């Protein structure tokens, strides 16, 4: 077994867990969701979902991870198998915890590489003197990989490979030597960059540097509550979905990180600290950057129109242009802060995606750490090729939908059922409380057992119409290739789990007299 790795420090573990949760969605998705779902009133269902679904799932996943680690497992197939060894089903459900990370990393590393490239372009002053349309057009040209924006052939591919190599190199350095060090540097920098931009966003003054509104106009628009939205099922579904994606639950990464914690060490307080840190980045910083700055320059109507296509356009097509209104030096500083914080948000998440796969290969097949890291990098490279070269055809979005959205809900639903109803709440509650540095309110025992599963069933059922619609829409053949690739990854991973299980059984038979 590979339980030879350790976290360097408790703060490092909490920052790594928070980094795993904090992603690009904290800055690009949350504010857009709030704008589209009742403004300030969105925060109420959002925080309710955090309390009733987010925190319970965090505790469940931390507890599952630490339990599995005690038995030498660092990935969900055999963590889940260990929780219910009588049924063969669980280890194949646990495949989601490997499949999701491979498939999400495939497109996520590409997205992360854009931030690296945009840092470079911000410093190089590429956007200075360009019109809004030209800056927006730059992005479309950039993702059309055959066209170079800087003279580097296949620039987007070069940055993507650099980003992937960087991820792999950090993973090869190990938990405390790589992942934890990046979290300790990246999270404070991310918060610092966020604070700088938030102050700039909130203090925008109409009439200065071409701004047409004060920064507070954007805040006012974002936070003005439309209480009628609170009675809408759609708003609650959006809030639950946002909590899901922002906390990185249902992926298997939390279990993997927690599997390196010993039973006598706390998980209850760690989970709360990492979870609330993510909320701070999302609610406090995420809400104070993109919307106030965009509305400051473009006005409410234009921003509402732009948010209809999601936050990615605002982040990569609009903000770089708005930064240029501040003059060349401040534009470069703002560009480095904005894309720097997005990069740190991305890299701390993509590193987390590598660890379950590496844990699985080390535990079950005795792979060396570095070999497992480079294997992960290689597989993500191969899986990323269709996302990069068929970005415009929609393969990127397809991977995001099935692996980064639907799989999370399905897996989380299964894991809460396993934890609360099959592993059992008596054992589960003891596992959460073992070594705890805080007293977990007993009401959460019942929330985990009854409320959270009901919430998840509600989210799943609420998502079914969209899934049905997605399955029936006309898509180009490249998207079908993407779907076949995703299915293949799931089945190949399941086959690996089967082989690993047979290997374990043979070893047990050999040990028996």
């Amino acid at each position, binding site marked *: 077994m590979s339980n030879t790795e350790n976290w360097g420090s408790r703060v490092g573990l*909490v920052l790594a867990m928070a980094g795993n949760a904090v992603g690009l969605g904290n800055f690009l998705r949350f504010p857009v969701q709030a704008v589209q779902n009742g403004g300030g009133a969105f925060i109420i269902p959002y*925080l309710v979902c955090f309390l009733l679904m987010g925190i319970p799932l965090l505790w469940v996943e931390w507890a599952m991870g630490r339990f599995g680690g005690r038995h030498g497992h660092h990935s969900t197939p055999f963590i889940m198998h260990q929780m219910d060894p009588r049924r063969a089903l669980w280890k194949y459900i646990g495949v989601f915890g490997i499949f999701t990370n491979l498939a999400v990393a495939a497109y996520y590393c590409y997205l992360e590489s854009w931030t690296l490239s945009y840092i470079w372009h911000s410093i190089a002053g590429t956007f200075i003197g360009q019109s809004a349309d030209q800056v927006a057009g730059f992005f479309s040209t950039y993702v059309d990989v055959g066209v170079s924006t800087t003279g580097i052939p296949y620039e987007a591919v070069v940055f993507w490979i650099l980003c992937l190599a960087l991820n792999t190199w950090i993973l090869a350095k190990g938990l405390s030597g790589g992942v934890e060090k990046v979290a300790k540097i990246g999270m404070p920098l991310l918060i610092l960059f966020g604070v700088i931009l938030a102050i700039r966003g909130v203090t925008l003054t109409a009439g200065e540097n071409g701004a047409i509104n004060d920064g507070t106009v954007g805040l006012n628009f974002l936070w003005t509550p439309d209480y009628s939205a609170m009675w809408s099922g759609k708003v609650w579904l959006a809030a639950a979905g946002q909590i899901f994606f922002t906390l990185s639950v249902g992926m298997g990464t939390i279990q993997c990180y927690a599997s390196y914690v010993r039973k006598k060490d706390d998980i209850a*307080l760690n989970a709360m600290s990492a979870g*609330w840190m993510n909320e701070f980045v999302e609610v406090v910083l995420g809400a104070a950057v993109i919307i106030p700055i965009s509305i400051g320059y473009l006005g409410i109507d234009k921003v509402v129109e732009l948010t209809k296509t999601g936050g990615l356009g605002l982040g990569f097509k609009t903000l770089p242009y708005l930064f240029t209104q501040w003059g060349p030096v401040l534009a470069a500083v703002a560009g480095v802060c904005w894309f720097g914080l997005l990069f740190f948000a991305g890299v701390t998440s993509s590193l987390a995606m590598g660890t379950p796969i590496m844990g699985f290969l080390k535990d079950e097949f005795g792979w060396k750490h570095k070999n497992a890291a480079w294997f992960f990098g290689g597989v993500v490279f191969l899986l990323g090729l269709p996302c990069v070269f068929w970005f415009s055809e929609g393969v990127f979005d397809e991977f995001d939908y099935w692996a980064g959205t639907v799989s999370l809900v399905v897996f989380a639903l299964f894991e809460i059922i396993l934890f609360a109803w099959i592993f059992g709440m008596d054992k589960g509650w003891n596992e959460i409380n073992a070594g705890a540095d805080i007293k977990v309110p007993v009401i959460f025992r019942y929330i985990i057992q009854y409320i959270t599963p009901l919430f998840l069933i509600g989210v799943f059922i609420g998502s079914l119409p969209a899934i049905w619609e997605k399955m029936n829409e006309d898509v180009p053949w490249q998207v079908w290739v993407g779907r076949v690739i995703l299915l293949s990854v799931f089945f190949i991973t399941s086959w690996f789990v089967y082989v690993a299980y047979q290997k374990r059984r043979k070893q047990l038979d050999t040990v028996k007299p």
Partner: protein
Amino acid sequence: MNTSALILMLSSVGIVTFATAYFFFRVVTAKPKPEPDSYTDNDPV
């Protein structure tokens, strides 16, 4: 900003900031468990 937006923003930001600071403070000030624990930095040299 209108009053309801201001109240909602300040209360949400306040709650989230307080909870983040409180739990992180608890993590930083918690006494380490006896060795062997999960963290290598505090191991005796």
